[in-house]
């Protein structure tokens, strides 16, 4: 018995290697003293992300199997990786003043925080490239576990701990379901490799009950991660409870990576069984659009609102997958990119207002921004108009692309569902814009009573609330401290408008992803 070591393509793996090295470096840098920690750690993290992004762009256009076929280097995976890296790069400045990472009166924890964030990004990069059941599952766990911790990282806030616990339980349930499904598929097809599964199904396993149960369970597990209704119940609570930068990261990056693997798994591995899963996913898409949009209607918390809106948006994106065509994959990737731009811009503004006002993420916190803080009002407005799909924003182009894919695949009724969902969504997106421009600012309330000490953090000196000012203390004078957030917010909003008027570059970029799968899609 001879053993030949697999040939390792270091160039193809370079983004993964960079991120891994970056995680170690950041974790070590977190050990330096309080004063320089933030600067050092953040610089290292951003440099890691920039390098990884650069390497992804360098590898753009390569199409090959990596690590004995466990990973696939192609534009779909790289596109997902780039969006996830962008999200992480925006979230790092967002987290600078976050109590989760830097709480007055205790040691800063930027090293831990950003190392966890980078680990999650690493999981996403791997997930977007996974083409083997084992690497698929390992990557999704690598993505999830750091997020469980990050959600609960604001140790002084009961809601944050609750969010962490809830996400851990529901996320584990989702992972378990997914794993169970993967086991069934392996059992049915006898292969862990996506192409092996594809061959098995093409050879007549499409109606094999074992495989079908596996497909259903795997889809359910992924639906938990992406928060597609009816597997979405955790989303609003976790989004609201988690520290806002973490919410921003979860809302964007998790969706991107999970959708990439969703596409690869269903279009490549399960491609021949398309007639079996297509109607089921179409129903999931409609349920998600309806539940998300109706759920968002009455929300006063902006994070919950964006949580529900994310459920609805996931429903729209699922339409791209249901179309099961090259056009559909392109539309999905395009939509993911625009969704990332718009959502991150909104979260930037929410983070700033959370620190400046006592209202937290309540819609009241953004009232009157148009008059007082146009530099915040415009990004939020553009982001909301974009998510609502109004023209001259990238959101309109995304919807156009998705509807075109749906109609092209003879799913016109899904296109109508997108249109009806968008109508409902206007009511809440425009409510936010109306609050920004058409309502007077809310008068600041008195300081809220200090939070109780959460039981879960009990006893540790860090969790002692006595004498620790809430949040960031008195609000800073406008514009001084949050330049690091305002710049990305403005940039993201500008990009939203730019790609709404000149979408061709992004369309071309996204269409590479579909071409990468062209061999597998009819």
């Amino acid at each position, binding site marked *: 018995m001879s053993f030949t070591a697999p040939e390792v393509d270091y160039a193809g793996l370079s983004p993964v290697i960079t991120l891994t090295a970056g995680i170690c470096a950041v974790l070590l840098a977190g050990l330096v003293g309080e004063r320089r920690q933030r600067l050092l750690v953040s610089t290292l993290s951003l440099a890691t992300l920039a390098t990884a992004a650069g390497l992804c762009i360098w590898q753009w256009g390569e199409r090959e199997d990596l690590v004995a076929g466990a990973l696939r280097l192609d534009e779909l995976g790289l596109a997902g990786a780039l969006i996830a890296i962008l999200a992480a790069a925006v979230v790092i400045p967002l987290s600078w003043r976050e109590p989760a990472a830097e709480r007055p009166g205790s040691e800063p924890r930027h090293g831990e925080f950003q190392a966890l964030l980078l680990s999650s990004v690493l999981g996403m990069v791997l997930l977007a490239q996974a083409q083997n059941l084992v690497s698929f599952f390992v990557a999704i766990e690598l993505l999830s576990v750091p997020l469980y911790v990050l959600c609960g990282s604001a140790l002084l806030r009961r809601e944050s701990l609750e969010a962490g616990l809830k996400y851990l339980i529901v996320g584990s349930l989702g992972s378990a379901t997914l794993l169970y499904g993967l086991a069934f598929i392996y059992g049915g097809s006898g292969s862990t490799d996506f192409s092996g599964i594809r061959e098995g199904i093409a050879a007549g396993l499409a109606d094999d009950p074992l495989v079908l149960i596996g497909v259903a369970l795997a889809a359910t597990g992924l639906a938990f991660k992406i928060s597609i209704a009816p597997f979405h119940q955790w989303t609003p609570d976790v989004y609201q409870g988690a520290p806002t930068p973490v919410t921003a990261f979860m809302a964007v990056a998790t969706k991107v990576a999970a959708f990439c693997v969703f596409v690869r798994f269903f279009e490549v591995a399960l491609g021949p069984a398309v007639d079996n899963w297509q109607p089921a996913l179409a129903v999931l898409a409609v349920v998600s659009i309806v539940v998300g949009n109706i759920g968002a209607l009455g929300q006063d918390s902006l994070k919950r609102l964006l949580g529900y809106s994310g459920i609805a948006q996931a429903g729209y994106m699922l339409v791209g997958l249901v179309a099961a065509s090259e056009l559909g994959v*392109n539309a999905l990737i395009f939509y993911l990119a625009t969704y990332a731009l718009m959502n991150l811009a909104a979260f930037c503004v929410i983070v700033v207002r959370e620190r400046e006002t006592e209202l937290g993420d309540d819609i009241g916190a953004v009232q009157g921004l*148009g*008059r007082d803080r146009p530099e915040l009002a415009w990004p939020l407005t553009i982001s909301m*108009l974009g998510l609502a*799909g*109004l*023209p*001259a924003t990238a959101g*309109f*182009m995304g*919807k*156009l*692309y998705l*509807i*075109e894919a749906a*109609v*092209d695949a003879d799913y*016109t009724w899904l*296109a*109508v569902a*997108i*249109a*009806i969902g*968008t*109508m409902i969504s*206007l*009511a809440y997106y*425009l*409510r936010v814009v*109306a609050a920004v*421009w*058409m*309502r007077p600012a809310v008068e600041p309330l008195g300081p809220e009573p200090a939070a109780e000490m959460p039981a879960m953090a009990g006893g540790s000196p860090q969790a002692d609330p006595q004498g620790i000012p809430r949040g960031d203390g008195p609000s800073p004078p406008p514009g001084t401290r949050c330049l690091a957030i305002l710049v990305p917010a403005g940039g993201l909003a500008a990009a939203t408008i730019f790609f709404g008027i000149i*979408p*061709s570059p992004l*369309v*071309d970029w996204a*269409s590479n992803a579909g071409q990468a799968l062209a061999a597998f899609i009819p």
Partner: protein
Amino acid sequence: MGVRAVIQVMLWLPVAVGLLCFVVPRRAVGVSAILGTGIVLGLAIALVAGFHTAEAGLQHQVSESWIPDLGVRYQLGVDGISLFLVLLTALLWAGVTVFSTFRMPDRRRIYFFMLGLGETATLGAFLAQDLLLFVLFFDLMLVPFWFLIGAFGGENRIAATTKMIVYTLVGSLLMLVAAIATAVLASDQVGHLSFSLADLSAHTLSSGSQEWIFLFFAAAFLIKMPAVVVHGWLPDAYRAAPLPVLALLAGVLSKVGAYGFLRVALPLYPEATVTYQELILAVGVASILYGSVMAFTQTNVRLIAGYSSIAQLGFITIGIFSLRPDGADGSVLQMVNHGLVVAPIFLIIALLWERSGSEDITRLGGLAMRAPVLAALFLIVTLATLAMPGSANFIGEFYILIGVFQAKIVYAFVAIAGVALAAFYAIRLFQRTMHGRPPENVDSREIALRDAAVLAPLVACIVALALYPGLILSRGEAAVEDKVAAVASEGDR
């Protein structure tokens, strides 16, 4: 400057000037806005002057690749149908901008930016020759108006403006789906994915697809006008909107719906147009009757003008759906006529409010006593509104009725009742505000010179058009016949 540049500059200048309003000093905002709309008006006049009357096809065409992967092109052009609507847009926007600068709103930068964005979007809807570009501009029009009403309007403005945008977007999002479906379904015949109106009208769809697609488009256009049954947003929005904005909403935006029928629905879906002709005619006639009766019973002057718009747009609709060249040509004329009369009415209402603090005819009256010039201007507008013989509105309605008589005589008989009712509500509006004994709250003052400078040119346009309606009729004729002929041949089959 090349002819193509005229149309491009005209389209994008307003929003560029709107952006400029954010950087120029506060005092210069009004001046730059006026300059911008003035230049656009000049270009629009140049466009009319350089128009070749006899041609049915598009002139000043611009066609650039925009999103090749999705089959969307940046295609613009004018023909006899859109020519005067473009001029009307430029004219009313210039008038309203000047009128607004005399009553400088708080947060003026964003006000004039939104006005500029609105002008670009409206001109874009009239100029677009690509179906998707049309839908895009059609939807984009809403955003600035939503802002203008919501941020600068009166009582209950946020609810009213949200209701308006939800209503209209219900229509336009379905229209987006319908537009994409048209292009995708036609791509087999065209050979590639194309949203170009020329390609799509050359290869019409099967009658089954045409029908549902037509209904989606019709819903969008009827809501925009608005027509009866889908007019629910109108009373609230009209009560809450600032009056200069309302002048544009009623004067220009309502026409985009009617224009859409001529530009999109008739040429692209001829079979469905014939199938649903009677349905739309019925909606049009119902709008005439309902709008007239409501205008007669309301006491709020804004709503009187608003409901009269519903009635007038009903006329325009039945003219188009007579599917006869006379009727459709009359509708094109009537679109311009109605814009020219309804905008001054709303501006005059603003003056009435300044003189009395009320917009209710029970608390108005006697204004003519010390303000003969204002009264005279108002009288001309009123007479034009009720389509007095001699006015261009009379000629427009006459042509429309000829068309409908030729097509479906029953609807014409009912529609004639609308002509009579128009006299009632228009004269009632004039009498109750201008004549009689002035209530205590009314301070009868003559129109200020600056306001007259806005109103007098608009009224002069009404008079000029009354003297020479052929200006529009002759230029519209060829294009209208071209659009109607395709459908008519379908109907005869």
